[in-house]
């Protein structure tokens, strides 16, 4: 008789503190979860992000912005993780982490410039080393590996945080990256924002694995799940993972469960492949009212504050839109600037041609 034993078992932990109505259902809550000073900035960020989002969609529909990807419903993941980072860390987003980017200092104007089709939108004033949005799915996961490798090599107390979606976990790049992160025990956090949809492909068709988090098991790295719409849970697990990675504990993978309440992009119409009832049902898990209700429960938030915040967000979004609209387009020869460190002489004639087409005499 052959000897049967278990070579490996695994368990995936799921963390949640607040129920959909914003009541604490598990404890003990982290100490900062009672502190309005910590929570209110998170809430303000989410409301700001949502206000910005509505305006961006409106701009696209009225022809003032190109195709735009909305993070509606996912706001808690970005800011929950970003608020656990330090300035010197490096973030590598996909294209739905505006709450994280705004938290870290990217401006709404820069976001509008990017979707408006102007490369200057990725020349962040701050933070200077964060990566721009990544459109080809999962290809930035290996960039994160390289960034984290550099940090470890130089013995810096910095980490790389790489966001990706559920679809990205099917990509070869993802496997190669988490695998390498594990081999070298890099200071890196992969955050899988599982919003259940990769354009029209539902999560159930993306993989046979029970969770996306457990893909980290295959790479030998620490992995867990969290309720992505419970900002206290997100912030908590992110903080623990980041502290551990920063302290030399190796890479982490967090699967944050959420739902994409919007279309994939403004050119997509999700009603073609998604049941309206399903979407409607998901609104009850909306992270924004969840936190608001919790804050109200803490007596840390009032209606007046809410109205005041909404007005403030509206005003700042309008200011960003004005700044975006007032930004003059660059001249066509700008295509040649920043192609290489210095444009080779052999290309000068092309640059002149482009300049002439824009009416310049350069």
């Amino acid at each position, binding site marked *: 008789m052959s000897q049967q034993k278990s070579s490996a078992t695994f368990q995936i932990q799921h963390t949640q503190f607040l129920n959909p109505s914003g009541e604490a259902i598990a404890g003990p809550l982290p100490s900062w979860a009672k502190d309005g000073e910590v929570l209110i900035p998170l809430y303000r960020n989410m409301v700001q992000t949502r206000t910005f989002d509505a305006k961006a969609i409106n701009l696209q529909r009225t022809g003032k912005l190109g195709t735009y990807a909305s993070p509606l419903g996912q706001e808690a993941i970005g800011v929950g993780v970003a608020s656990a980072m330090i300035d010197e860390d490096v973030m590598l987003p996909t294209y739905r982490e505006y709450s994280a980017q705004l938290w870290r200092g990217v401006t709404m104007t820069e976001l509008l410039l990017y979707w408006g089709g102007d490369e200057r939108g990725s020349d962040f004033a701050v933070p200077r080393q964060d990566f721009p949005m990544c459109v080809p799915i999962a290809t930035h996961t290996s960039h994160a590996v390289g960034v984290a490798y550099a940090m470890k090599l130089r013995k810096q107390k910095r980490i790389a945080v790489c966001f990706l979606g559920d679809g990205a976990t099917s990509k070869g790049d993802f496997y190669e990256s988490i695998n390498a992160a594990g081999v070298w025990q890099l200071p890196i956090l992969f955050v899988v924002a599982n919003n259940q949809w990769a354009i029209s492909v539902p999560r159930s068709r993306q993989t046979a694995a029970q969770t996306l988090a457990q893909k980290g098991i295959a790479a030998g790295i620490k992995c867990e799940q969290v309720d992505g719409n419970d900002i206290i849970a997100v912030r908590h697990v992110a903080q623990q993972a980041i502290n551990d990675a920063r302290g030399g504990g190796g890479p982490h993978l967090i699967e944050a469960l959420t739902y994409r309440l919007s279309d994939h992009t403004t*050119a997509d*119409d999700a*009603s073609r492949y998604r049941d309206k009832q399903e979407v409607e049902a998901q609104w009850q898990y909306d992270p924004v009212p969840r936190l608001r209700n919790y804050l109200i429960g803490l007596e840390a938030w009032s209606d007046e504050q809410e109205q005041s915040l909404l007005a403030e967000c509206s005003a700042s979004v309008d200011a960003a839109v004005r700044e975006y609209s007032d930004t003059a387009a660059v001249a066509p020869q700008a295509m040649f600037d920043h192609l290489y460190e210095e444009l080779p002489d052999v290309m000068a004639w092309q640059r002149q041609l482009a300049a002439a087409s824009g009416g310049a005499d350069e």
Partner: protein
Amino acid sequence: MKTFLLPDLGEGLTEAEIVEWHVKVGDEIKTDAPLVSVETDKAIVEVPSPRSGRIAKLHAQVGDVVETGRPLMQFADGVDERADTGTVVGEVKAGEEKVEEKAVSTAKAGSATAGVKATPAVRALARRMNVDLSFVKPSGPDGLVTAADVERVAKRFAELGPPEPLRGARRAMAHHMTQAHSEVVPATVVADADIHQWMEDGADITVRLVHAIVAGCTQEPALNTWFDGHALARRVLQKIDVGIAVDTKDGLFVPVLRDVANRSNNDLREGLDRLRADVKARRVPPEELRGSTITLSNFGMIAGRYAAPVVVPPAVAILGAGQIRDEVVAVDGAPTVHRILPLSLTFDHRAVTGGEAARFLAAVINSLESAVAE
């Protein structure tokens, strides 16, 4: 649906006025139940509800005029269908342009490479040396003009000066004669006409020759014909339009004397004089140089006895008149001196037989030997 738009009421109607709402905001309605009455040009129409649901908003009041396709009212729930963008990024514009393409035949339309074969370097050299490449005989493989060829021609030009390109009438003559030579099968028969009966010194015999041609064509219409060598078809023509060869310092011109058979002598005389004057003054319009049915060449006014002049298609005959001479002839067994006019007839043997030509010539001679032109 959420927003109900005023439907097409048919019969080309584009708008309607709200007469009466059958619901108010907050009401529940069932599918097909009457929603609103509207008045069109034709009648009052009742619009049924397209679905069941709760009324959330009425977009028009009684008395308002609503255009077809504009919002009428809104249900409390539901979603308005968006047009399918057919993409997930950017804009893929839809257009109405219908493309029609004809089958293109790329079968070699003329495989002969037009023009001179020379590399760009050789062309540039020719330009610099001021050599027209069409003057250069190529010595390179496959008809390629080489640099050496260009240099050779440039040297010759330097020694001899450039050749004079043919222009105007000389150029036309070169073209026509080349074409005639390549197509026509010429045959020539010569004879003499004894014109002592009417010939006076200095008389212009051209009118008599024209009469003689009329006589010849009457006898043998086959020589007043246009012949198509490609189709192998001919047109025997009724009207006789004689091309009169006129020699000038600018070259050969052949203006046409029209319908000679039906004109009086004086008319012919005047016509000839006018033609000659016009040619001299270079004011003959191009159409008067075209369309002759038979040609007369009176080269004898200069010199020469017999000739084999060139038949230019589509005509099939040309009569040449040589220099009039005094000759000793036999009359009733005794020698005497008569004025003799040599004649040459060249004909296109594709279209005219020897017999026809000979009979034509006999009639010409007969006409010329008569005391008075007939």
